[in-house]
């Protein structure tokens, strides 16, 4: 047994330590997403905080004037702009998205459901610049011709964003509907409910927390969308007064000026990033609180 080193204690130990090293490397990659999230927050805050200090938190958040050349940084019009278009997108996109999820789960014949599912996935893959472009050549002229105003508007942005949040709303609502126990539906059917009654009285109410989470995440998408909004919103710095006024959102405000901003101006753009990031984090926390409530 002198040469039988294969099963020696030493070899066994080195194998074990090899396994250990692999496990550690894998643990590091598992933590990478948390680490990157942390890095993003740190870098955005480090770059943006000086602008908060220079303009004052309230001055920055509630100021009505954005004049980088005079070092006046008030972002209220852009915050309101973001809220307007996000609200509009939700009003248009969320009901259609939820109904589409109901269609996929309950109404569509298998073949149609299949095609619709593929469409939803493909819709998620279309680049946001393409959505913006379609908005620019179709939606903006439509609003200008038939509804009024310059066309570049809250309304045009809401329509484009309403379409863009569909994949998020549909897929998460669909998950919620499909995870309901079959007995809910069967029970209602056995009581003689029609298909629509089952949907409106049993399925949608039971899946409401999932649907709510879907809507909140859709809101996050609308709030964070940049390139499509730039192309259809008009990017005016005035406080929007209605559906037809042109707006600038936080995201498009950042993207429009990042190319040439320097010094305090650039820091102010990062400070807008802080505001955006805070809103997004809040929405995410809400969504996970809502869906955790469901699983309990």
């Amino acid at each position, binding site marked *: 047994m002198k040469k039988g080193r294969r099963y020696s204690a030493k070899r066994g130990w080195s194998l074990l330590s090899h396994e250990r090293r692999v496990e550690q490397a894998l643990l590091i*990659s598992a933590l990478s997403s948390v680490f990157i999230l942390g890095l993003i927050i740190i870098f955005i805050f480090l770059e943006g905080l000086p602008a908060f200090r220079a303009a004052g938190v309230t001055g920055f958040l509630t100021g009505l004037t954005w004049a980088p050349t005079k070092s006046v940084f008030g972002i209220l019009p852009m915050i309101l702009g973001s809220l307007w278009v996000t609200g509009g997108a939700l009003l248009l996109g969320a*009901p*259609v998205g939820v109904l*589409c999820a109901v269609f996929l789960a309950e109404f569509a014949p298998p073949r149609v459901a299949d095609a619709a599912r593929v469409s939803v996935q493909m819709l998620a893959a279309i680049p946001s610049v393409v959505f913006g472009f379609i908005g620019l050549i179709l939606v903006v002229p439509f609003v200008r011709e038939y509804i009024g105003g310059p066309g570049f508007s809250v309304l045009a942005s809401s329509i484009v964003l309403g379409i863009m949040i569909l994949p998020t709303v549909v897929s998460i609502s669909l998950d919620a509907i499909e995870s309901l126990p079959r007995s809910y539906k069967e029970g209602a059917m056995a009581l003689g409910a029609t298909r629509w009654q089952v949907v409106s009285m049993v399925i949608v109410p039971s899946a409401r927390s999932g649907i709510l989470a879907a809507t909140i995440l859709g809101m996050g998408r609308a709030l964070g969308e940049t390139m499509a909004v730039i192309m259809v919103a008009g990017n005016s710095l005035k406080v929007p007064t209605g559906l037809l006024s042109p707006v600038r959102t936080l995201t498009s405000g950042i993207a429009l000026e990042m190319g040439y901003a320097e010094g305090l101006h650039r820091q102010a753009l990062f400070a807008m*990033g802080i505001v955006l990031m805070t809103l997004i984090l809040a*929405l995410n926390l809400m969504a996970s609180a809502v869906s955790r409530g469901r699983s309990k």
Partner: protein
Amino acid sequence: MKDRLGTLLVWASGMLVMGVLLAIISIVLVRGLPFLSLEFLTQAPQKMGREGGILPMIAGTFLLALVAVPVATVLGVGAAIYLSEYTVEGRLTRIVRSGTEILAGVPSIIFGLFGFVLFVLTLGFGWSVVSGGLTIAFMTLPTIIRTSEESLRAVPRIYRDVSYALGAGKWHTIRKVVLPSAGQGILTGVMLALGRAVAETAAVIFTAGSSLRFPTSPFDPVRTMAVHFYILAREGISMDRAYATAAALIVLILVVNSVALMLMRRYRARF
């Protein structure tokens, strides 16, 4: 009555989603394909893109993906292996999972800002393939983690048990048995990430730049097809060429995502 109306609304919504997709694709293809020629794909642009083709942008798009996708795959698949094979549900998995979820919800413009400070300025990579690629790698990481973890979990327990029974160690089993079985599923995530890398604009424009020159090194700035399309369309440089670029972009994205969908179906059918 209520029934009729409800059913009608549900069908209308379903049809609307399909209709919108079809409309977008057909508008871009109908208007763009006539201008899409071999010359357009193989020539350099002239006069800011008013004339000539998009060869440097195609190269830029692929180079960027060439940096982004492997980095995201290594990190993402590693994370997925750890989550599915090495740990039980607990505090760690909860932290990693919510971190991944939040990262997936971070807007691309924020990734752009972040990549700009970290890679372009702090690490001194400048506007380059590397800066843009790493930014996109971080952005697509959640996609790869999620699909890979799902695929790994779908591999039946018995595969691992048989391998252990034959005397294989844990890592050996993962490498030789679990990963190859989950291959198609993992590849789905990789293709989805590739699709997102090709489609992205906001995060790329501030990290990779918008240079029109043909890139010769990983530290050269590039303009991707999506960024080129954005600049052509927004600045009204050339509508014909904007449509043609969009058509090339859409075709590429449809191909990549169809492959992803097909792989996912095959994988689901298998397990």
